[in-house]
């Protein structure tokens, strides 16, 4: 059984994971804008695919937060 302190640590770790994923998505958004400016469709779609995967991972991580 987890103690309260362990739970807090686990929650904090999850928040850090989500922050890292969101930071990466911000970077991907800048790449997508650059792809848009230079008309690189393949790069734009690749960026979108990774971004959707990261968003899905973020949503999946939400499940592990204690209600």
């Amino acid at each position, binding site marked *: 059984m987890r103690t309260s302190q362990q739970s807090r640590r686990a929650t904090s770790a999850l928040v850090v994971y989500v922050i890292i994923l969101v930071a990466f998505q911000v970077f991907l958004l800048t790449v997508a804008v650059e792809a848009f400016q230079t008309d690189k469709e393949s790069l734009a779609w690749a960026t979108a695919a990774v971004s*959707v995967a990261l968003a899905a991972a973020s949503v999946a991580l939400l499940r592990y937060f204690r209600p």
Partner: protein
Amino acid sequence: MNDPEIPAPAWKLDFPYEAAAEEEVTRREFARYLVGGAVVMAAGNVGLAAWTQLRSINTGEPRAIVALNDVAVGDTHLFRYPAEHDPAILVRLADQEVVAFSQKCTHLGCVVFYEADESRWHCPCHEGNFDTRTGAVLSGPPPRPLGRIDIEIRGDMIWALGAHA
């Protein structure tokens, strides 16, 4: 802070005290906002990709650009093609020779201009240079040639027939 949507558990009704662990709820909400932002950014990314794709599909309809007599040999003319937000430029190289290109540099989208002295298209942002007639990269960081616009002289008018990426 308690979430109004989640009913308080039975034990909390019996023992209504505030615990140090209450702050975890705030963290969960914070994470929820972050995940919401991640979903919005993913949607924005997909939207940008779709927009980029749609722009490349639009090659433009044939239309008259400018009267041939209004452009002297060696001069350039700015116009918008294929859409109103796509800057393009043409240069009259000889009496009956006109070439046109998208004005967007293929490196980072800066505006290129014609350098008559060097006889080349020049991007001042990162010193990219393109061939006047073909738009091929001569030097600098651009990875691809300039987007070419098919041009035809019909009577006294210069027509744009379509754009190529």
